[in-house]
């Protein structure tokens, strides 16, 4: 075990932390699976509106690898299938019946899981609908089943603003978590690394076997997968590592032990836009409405995930597959008089150009206002302060913009994901979309192989 102290980065002082108490919400009336959550797949529907489905019924598959199936988290009927621009499949909405009748999959005894062959585990995860929980670097897409991962990272720490303390929700799930870890260990010749917060107390994490545990302390992005990979087992061109969220490791264990597609999930309900903030016990694909029961969402931005890396899904939206947090913040967009002149005691900044930098408050109200117009990059010295990886961010950005893929790879683009640059985008006075530009570069590289 090692402890990594991350120095570069920043924890945003944003209002709206959830209380660390688990609240069991009423079973959701509708849930949805969103194919757009899975980067790079080409979805093909396996159901149509009106079909009745069970827990574990195939909703859609990936055309590029038809073994990868995406299963229904609830029993009921398919209420709607919505499409977006260019007929992209957006949501498959299920009206639940509350019975949770389930398809049956293969079961294993806890002791035998560690001895299973890689191919058997892959088969079980594919048919049981949990393969999508295993993602890979580079590109942050669903892991390629034929690849040999150098190592596998389990993320049990999240330093995103207002993120869930996963320590709390793993309580009592030792058996399932260990089964999940054992299964992951069969998938790699290398190690499984369990990355936790420095103060992780849950026995589920501290007594995990068959893995190497590392602790990460310091400001965000100490909890990002890229930070873990960079510090523990760096990747070069040609390397692949896989990574899984801690809650999904539990679900992998549950699938193998019980033979049903596990759907239970804890989601932190956060942000100043909701009055009641808690850790909700719910199922995959729950709706924002159900999670924020009763809160008025008019004029609020509803985000699945955190303010830094999440996705705006709207008040009628659903939690994305990989997220364990929703954040509701005011939409903002009011025009302030003479913004360049005001002292700004209540305006949050990482720069020293507002009074708030000198008379700091414990937390600030942040809305979705860009707080300025887009300009060419001027303050090129800012970015490196927020990325704890050995990457010249400004030059990587320029390489991507110039479509200089070779340089971008040499500077380390394959190691990263757009979320690693969220703080750069946040801090940039020119309002440059740093992460989005990096993502364009990754997409080009992935497409061209």
């Amino acid at each position, binding site marked *: 075990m090692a402890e990594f102290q991350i120095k570069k980065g920043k924890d*945003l002082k*944003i209002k709206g932390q959830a209380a660390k108490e688990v609240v069991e919400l009423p079973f959701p009336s509708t849930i949805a699976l969103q194919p757009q959550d899975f980067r790079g797949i080409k979805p093909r529907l396996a159901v149509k509106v009106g079909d009745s489905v069970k827990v574990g019924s195939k909703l859609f598959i990936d055309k590029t690898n038809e073994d990868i199936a995406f299963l229904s988290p609830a029993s009921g009927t398919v209420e709607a299938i919505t499409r977006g621009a260019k007929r992209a499949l957006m949501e498959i909405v299920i009206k639940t019946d509350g019975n949770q009748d389930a398809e049956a999959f293969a079961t294993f005894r806890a002791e035998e899981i560690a001895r299973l062959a890689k191919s058997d585990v892959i088969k079980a995860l594919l048919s049981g609908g949990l393969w999508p929980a295993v993602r890979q670097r580079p590109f942050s897409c669903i892991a390629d089943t034929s690849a040999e991962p150098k190592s596998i990272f389990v993320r049990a720490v999240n330093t995103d603003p207002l993120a869930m303390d996963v320590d709390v929700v793993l309580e009592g799930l030792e058996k399932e978590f260990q089964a999940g870890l054992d299964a992951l260990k069969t998938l790699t010749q290398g190690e499984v690394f369990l990355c936790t917060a420095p103060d992780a107390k849950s026995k589920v994490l501290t007594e995990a076997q068959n893995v190497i545990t590392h602790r990460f302390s310091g400001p965000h992005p100490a909890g990002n997968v890229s930070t873990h990979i960079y510090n523990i087992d760096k990747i*070069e061109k040609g390397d692949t590592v896989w990574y899984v969220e801690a809650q999904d490791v539990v679900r992998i264990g549950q699938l193998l032990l019980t033979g049903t597609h596990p759907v239970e999930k804890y989601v932190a309900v956060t942000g100043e836009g909701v009055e009641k903030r808690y850790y909700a016990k719910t199922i995959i694909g729950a709706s924002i409405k159900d999670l924020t029961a009763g809160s008025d969402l008019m004029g609020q*931005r509803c*985000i699945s995930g955190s*303010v*830094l*890396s*999440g996705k705006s899904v709207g008040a009628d939206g659903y939690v994305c597959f990989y997220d364990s947090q929703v*954040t509701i913040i005011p939409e903002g*967009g*009011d*025009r*302030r*008089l*003479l*913004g*360049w*002149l005001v002292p*700004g005691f209540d305006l*949050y*900044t*990482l*720069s*020293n*150009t507002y009074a708030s930098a000198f008379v700091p408050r414990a937390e600030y109200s*942040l*809305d*979705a*206002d*860009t*707080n*300025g*117009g887009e*300009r*060419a*990059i*001027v*303050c*090129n*010295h800012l970015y*490196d302060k927020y990325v704890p990886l*050995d990457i*010249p961010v*400004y*030059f990587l950005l320029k390489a991507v913009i110039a479509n200089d893929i070779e340089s971008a790879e*040499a*500077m*380390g683009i394959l190691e990263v994901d757009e979320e690693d640059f*969220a*703080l750069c*985008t*946040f*801090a*940039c*006075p020119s*309002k440059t*979309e740093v*992460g*989005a530009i990096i993502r364009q570069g990754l997409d080009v590289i992935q497409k061209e192989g």
Partner: protein
Amino acid sequence: MSLFAKISKEIEEKYFSKGKPLEKMFPLFDALDTFLLTPGKTTKQAPHVRDAVDIKRVMIFVVLALTPCILMGMYNVGYQMSVAEGLEYSVLACFGAGALKVLPIIIVTYAVGGLWEGLFAIVRNHEINEGFLVTGILFALTLPPTIPLWQVAVGISFGVVIGKEIFGGTGYNVLNPALTARAFVFFAYPAQMSGDAVWAAVDGFSKATPLAVAAIAERGTDAVEAIQNAGYTFQDVFLGFIPGSIGETSALACLLGLAFLLITRVASWRVMAGCVIGLVAMSLFFGLFKGENSLAFFSLPPQWHLIMGGFAFGAVFMATDPVSSSATDAGRWIYGILIGALVVLIRMVNPAYPEGVMLAILFMNVFAPTIDHFVVQAQIKRRSARG
């Protein structure tokens, strides 16, 4: 929505939005509109929240940092006039007389520079960049108070168009546009830009700057003595009661600006520290060679170099321009140190230009991308060697 926001929206929809008569003028409307009110746009993708700071505020903070130099410059221009005329002006009279000379220069710079900026924004259909607020005032402050206004207009036109816009505008320029403009007028109109007669706004009066005094002092003599014999004390030079370009004479005013830039973290301290280290090291090095036959300049100790000429102004406000300086931390040190060293080199061994700051910074502007290239290549090598 506030009343102002409503009015602005109405005007925009009536005249400046797509298909309306003044559609092409939108960048001008936008510049004025966002000057009065924040844009009020919301984020389209993650991250959903953004820092309160924007380029407008950053640029205006640089202008604020220049206030001591502007005020001191106005005062000193008036003070030099009183010295030239042999009259005792009151503080207010000095300031007033100086302001009458300086304000027209600033107004012409902003009017002509702003015109170009606006023209390019309209033709290219992009926002007017607040960078020209900084470029304009920087350029004005590097001029002698006697410069004809038409030369100011020609100079800033060259700086904005050739120094910046042909590269794509603020953020893409290689050279510092204010210095480009100054270099242009310096070489195009040497009679109005250099010599001993241009520093006091009184006809027929000439007085050498301390730098010029040091440059022409006889071989083997002591430069400090020469400067003091010419009537300049260390204190005068530090406070800025000496002839020189409008904004650059007072090292104290530059120090105040420096403090403001460092406290607000708007400018890079590495560049400034590098400049000082380079200058001190190089002047000490030349000091080793002082002797009977050496230039008098060799005997000038570093503390004089620091406060004379445009060094303080250049190191604090010109070299730190993030766009035309190095963009890596290591690169910033190298860039700064080389500027400091070059300043001394040009001052001492190039008799044609007693002042080396402008050329030193422009020269290093050209080299900054090369420095960055090597720093980034070193980082890439380190990455691939880590195994």
